[in-house]
């Protein structure tokens, strides 16, 4: 075993540090601090993507001839940890971890030429049309119909839980093109060039935190050229499964959770415990905080163990485990956050939560963020395959082993 980073990696870290020192602006840090879900505030996340794209670092994992940085996994890790140390907002995954890699692998030459530059630079933002009101975990049962009409498909139906559709100018989606045979066999993968097409309506969904992050998207005879299809007609399910490969190739949740943990610790040191002391000195709180830290660190170590070539790197259950362990660690963290915030977490502070807002937090930034983070983090065990689905997958692997 060997934890050495090597001189080359240290030199790389210095390059990253120099770049971040020169390019990070206060509004980006503010957006990081006001990120209360997995999705950072839209405007700053996209501006940060643009800055990184200009440097060639927006999509480090992409093939180099498509704009990737050609980094080793260790370099990607160094970069992620340096960004996290500065509290920068995470980039939105839709362009960079979903549709971009998918088109690189499966798009036509025309589609690549037309879409990849905007995907990388952040000039375009793509939303993801998968879930429907009656198709969540059982995604293959989706019913949003696309009927062939000459060179076009005509789409009628509805999508739901479409993150940031109200900010998007493009969309990738799954539609039903056949009701014959198995439900997986009649699905097609399409690209929409605009969110202003005739017959298309976006309706924002107000979340538990009072903020519209998710949307519903309605289709009433929306025409899409067949040239905008990825893969064959009725083969969209295998296209969608291909995309999962990238969704799961994430980094460690460790740095982000450790940053929130440090903020929690600081807040607990100032928070009155109602019994004459501060919460940080309460032995019961200390034990729970210690258990939480141990858990967060062990999820990070599980990631590092895989990165370091250990057994998890070859475990088919690894992606499902990381998803479940990370989401539940973040939920456990969010519970302690609202406990420490107490009453100060109850005022809804939508205005002050905006980046560049004139309104100041009522007490402090921690108290303001705690409750929205807690509420939004309930979704972590629901989205991207609910944790019940993940546990099914894990048990299947364990019991087959």
């Amino acid at each position: 075993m060997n934890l050495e980073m090597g001189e080359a990696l240290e030199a790389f870290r210095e390059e990253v540090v120099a770049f971040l020192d020169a390019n990070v602006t206060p509004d980006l840090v503010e957006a990081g601090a006001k990120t209360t879900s997995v999705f950072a505030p839209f405007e700053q996340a996209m501006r940060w993507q643009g800055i990184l794209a200009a440097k060639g670092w927006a999509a480090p994992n992409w093939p180099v001839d498509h704009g990737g940085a050609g980094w080793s996994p260790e370099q990607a890790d160094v970069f992620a940890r340096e960004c996290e140390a500065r509290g920068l907002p995470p980039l939105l995954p839709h362009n960079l971890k979903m549709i971009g890699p998918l088109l690189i692998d499966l798009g036509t030459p025309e589609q690549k030429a037309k879409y990849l530059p905007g995907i990388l630079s952040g000039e375009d933002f793509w939303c993801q049309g998968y879930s429907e009101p009656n198709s969540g975990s059982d995604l293959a049962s989706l019913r949003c119909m696309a009927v062939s009409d000459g060179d076009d498909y005509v789409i009628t139906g509805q999508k739901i839980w479409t993150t940031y559709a109200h900010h998007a100018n493009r969309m990738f989606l799954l539609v039903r093109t056949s009701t014959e045979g198995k439900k997986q066999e009649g699905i097609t993968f399409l690209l929409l060039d605009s969110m202003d097409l005739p017959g298309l309506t976006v309706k924002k969904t107000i979340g538990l935190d009072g903020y519209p992050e998710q949307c519903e998207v309605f289709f009433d005879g929306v025409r899409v050229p067949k040239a905008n299809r990825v893969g064959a007609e009725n083969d969209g399910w295998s296209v969608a499964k291909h995309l999962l490969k990238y969704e799961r190739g994430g980094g460690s949740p460790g740095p982000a959770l450790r940053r929130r943990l440090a903020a929690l610790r600081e807040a607990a040191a100032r928070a009155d415990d109602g019994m004459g002391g501060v919460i940080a000195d309460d032995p019961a709180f200390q034990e729970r905080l210690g258990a939480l830290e141990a858990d967060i660190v062990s999820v990070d170590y599980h990631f590092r163990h895989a990165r370091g070539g250990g057994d998890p790197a070859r475990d088919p259950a690894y992606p499902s485990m990381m998803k479940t362990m990370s989401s539940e660690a973040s939920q456990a963290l969010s519970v302690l956050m609202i406990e420490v915030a107490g009453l100060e977490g109850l005022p809804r502070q939508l205005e002050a939560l905006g980046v560049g807002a004139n309104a100041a937090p009522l007490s402090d930034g921690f108290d303001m963020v705690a409750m929205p983070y807690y509420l939004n983090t309930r979704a972590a065990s629901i989205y991207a395959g609910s944790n019940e689905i993940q546990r099914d997958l894990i048990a299947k692997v364990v019991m087959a082993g």
Partner: protein
Amino acid sequence: MDLTFTEEQVMLRDSLAKYLERNYDFEKRRGFVAAGGHDAKVWGDLAEMGLLALAAPEARGGLGGTVVDLAAVAEIMGARLLAEPWLPALPSALCLAHGAPGAAADAALEGLLAGGAPIAFAHEEGRGLAEPARVAMQAVRDGDALVLTGAKRYVLAAETASHLVVSARVSGAAGDRAGIVVALVPRDAAGMTAEAYDTIDGRRGANLRFDGVRVPAADLLAGGDGDGAAGCDLLDAALAPTVLALCADAVGAMGALLKITSDYAQARKQFGVPIGSFQALRHRIADMAMSYQKARSTMIVTAAMMEAGSCAPRDLRLLKGQVGRMGRSLGESAVQVHGGVGMTDELAVGHYFKRLLAMDAMYGAGRMHLRAIGAAAA
């Protein structure tokens, strides 16, 4: 970064696993445990494989193994429920190897490395010592010698040992790093009495009473010069690899228990189908698998950190707390999935479970380590 075992480590693990498979299956183990848990032939075989000499540096006649070597073999021992006092004797071997040399210490270490009697570690007090600085047992100077008075708890292999490595306090109060001595005491020293017992996990332990046990200055391994922290430092140096190995042993037990439970869930039928087809039970097994993976990755990364010299006391607490918590949870689930038979002595399940419980309580309960992590940031 490379978090895999070396080729040599893989070979050592494989040969140990094969040896235990042939000579130490669960039924054979039952016989060894009934006879006191320490079998001269098995112990000699471990010595022949180099396992008893692994912890000592070459300069002291050992093999100069690394902490990762220790963790690598301990994981296999846990997976096979080895009851031989390899782990209980490990901190003693480390204290002897890294403490002050002397005629008695050299002879004791030489004996141990050659497969002689184990050397017990008489350190724990009260309900468990989370850190060496909390040692309270009294050592009083009397001319050139020290006189030990007080009690030690849960001293494993005390009956079969030739000697004990004993921690005691010559000055200061519990909590002070200064003023601790580490002494080598013959098992038959005058003034020492033992109350021996079987432990829940198939070992032999004893509570020891010291009533004026004399230790000549030549038999002090550290701390003999007075009020410095040398004794505490030696205990820390011995306990860090020991706690790592203890956690690796527990991780090995967790992996074996997960496998046994998963197999049982597929074999056992109720309502005409394997119970492993029920989602409530499958999800419990998924949770067991995640507990195991978290514990194992934490052990592996901590081992690599310790080898690189970057494992702080806090990192070790985190490992101990996490493995203890994950281990107990996994063990409880294993019993639950097995149902009634999981409650019997007949199956290995309960034996693994109890090994995990014992691990959590030793060298400071996990609860206490976790609280210490919560109380202070790095």
